């Protein structure tokens, strides 16, 4: 993480002009995006559209660059090339104030919740409200309780994050993500490490909230089973490229070897089982003769 760097000198108007996309149709549009840490390429040629009001999953093995895509959408990283348009604005060209204004319309659920450990559950959810609105405390209290009720944790309002189980913490983080009724919610591995009941709960919440609040959701995950149950569209990413895409029905019926390996959980396929190494025979008998 670094101090917010100086953006390019483009003005906000240029930022809008760069996104030649109809903001009514697509909430997020990535066009031929590539990204690299110094010389190590992470993403290349990523083009994806996330329509308004839909849930889109980005799937792939660990280290395939899925979380990087989320960071590009959120403006934490700047792409080496290509365009990132969110809500009609070109994210990499925004000035810091513009970026912060845009982020107020986002919600993000981090992998393990990222709740503020020095505050109670209530205060965690009230945090964005207190920071960005001038609402009186009584109204904030009602709103917090409503959000907590939506995720089923209204009775846990006074608990501290350390006292919550993994599933409960994830739900509180979800309530915090929707605290300001965002237009876009990003989920970073929401299903990771949860028990079956919590998995079902989180999946249901993601779907219900998306429809009830008319938000757009981007879910980065590698949980095939839960995703297929709730999402509208899937993108498969492998080694920084999109290798497959489709609706859940298309994906289930797909013959693409990568998709098949992923869904079936096969040990070997397009994603190789063996890490690159010299030939086995050569290495074992290296010092002989």
């Amino acid at each position, binding site marked *: 993480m670094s101090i917010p760097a100086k953006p390019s000198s483009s003005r906000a108007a240029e930022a809008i002009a760069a996104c030649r996309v109809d903001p009514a149709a697509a909430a997020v549009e990535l066009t031929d995006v590539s990204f690299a840490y110094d010389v190590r390429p992470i993403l290349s040629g990523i083009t994806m559209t996330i329509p308004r009001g839909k849930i889109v999953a980005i799937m792939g093995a660990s280290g395939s660059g899925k979380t990087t895509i989320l960071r590009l959408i*959120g403006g934490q990283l700047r792409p080496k090339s290509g365009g990132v348009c969110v809500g009609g604005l070109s994210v990499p060209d925004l000035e810091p104030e513009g970026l912060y204004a845009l982020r107020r319309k986002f919600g*993000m659920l*981090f992998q393990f919740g*990222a709740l503020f450990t020095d505050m109670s559950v209530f205060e965690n959810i009230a*945090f964005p409200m207190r920071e960005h609105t001038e609402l009186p405390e009584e109204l904030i209290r009602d709103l917090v309780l409503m959000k907590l009720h939506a995720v089923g944790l209204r009775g846990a309002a006074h608990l501290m994050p350390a006292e919550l189980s993994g599933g409960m913490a994830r739900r509180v983080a979800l309530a915090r993500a929707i605290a300001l009724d965002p237009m876009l919610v990003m989920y970073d591995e929401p299903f990771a490490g949860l028990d079956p009941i919590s998995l079902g709960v989180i999946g249901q919440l993601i779907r219900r909230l998306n429809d009830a609040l008319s938000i757009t959701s981007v879910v980065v995950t590698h949980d095939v089973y839960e995703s297929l149950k709730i999402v509208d569209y899937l993108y498969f990413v492998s080694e920084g490229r999109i290798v497959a895409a489709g609706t859940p029905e298309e994906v289930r019926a797909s013959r693409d070897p990568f998709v098949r390996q992923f869904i079936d959980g096969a040990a070997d396929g397009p994603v190789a089982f063996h890490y690159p190494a010299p030939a086995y025979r050569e290495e074992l008998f290296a010092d002989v003769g």
Partner: protein
Amino acid sequence: MSAELTAGVAQWLRRIGGAVTGAASKLGFASRFLLAVLWHTPGAFRRMHLTLREIYFSGVLSLVIILMSGLFVGMVLSLQGYETLKRYGADEQLGILVALSLVRELGPVMSGLLFASRAGSAITAEIGLMKTTEQLAAMEMMAVDPLARVVAPRFWGGVISMPLLAALFSAFGIFGGYVVGVRLIGIDAGAFWGQMKAGVDVWPDVTNGIIKSFVFGIAVSLIAVFEGYDAKPTAEGVSSATTRTVVMSSLMILALDFVMTVFMFRGASVI
């Protein structure tokens, strides 16, 4: 063999060059960081309760160690000082000895070192842990600048606490010196306080001591928040960041102390 040697030397030089440029860029980053923290100061004071909370955690919770250490240092100073002064028949100067040692040097420096190890490392660990558990990233994504909300209050909490702690250290030290010198050893109380009052000037002694502790506070707080913010988001990263805070703060305090002492107290004895 010569090719190997050249390659080895070249690599060694490259490592030194890398270390120097690394240190230089870290220094540059730290300076920009300081400016960013100062820039967000109004935000820290607008959320006054945050800064007060940090003054509590840095200052109030350091009171026990500071006061106890001050007391013991003062008592030992008195004990050791008396033995040496007695040889020259100057044992009535004990008051001045204890007071000047504490107010000019030991108060600011020792309380600075104690503060760095107790509060400085705690601040670094806290910020580093928040970075590791993505709390800082979450704050950024919620369009709240962590520099204003997390870093600046802790910085100012430290800067405000330090001079107060240094003064308390000196005061308790002098009291400890009084207890040992007058009550235990039996020096005349009037001579103790009288000589002290005559020998300790508010300017330059007391005020320079306060200026020193203020500078130390800035240095320690800056290093603490910077190392926390810059820590690698792993367990080892946070732990080495805390160690670095204590080590760098201590070295900075001693170096700054020397530089300031040269400027402040040179004038008093030079015509």
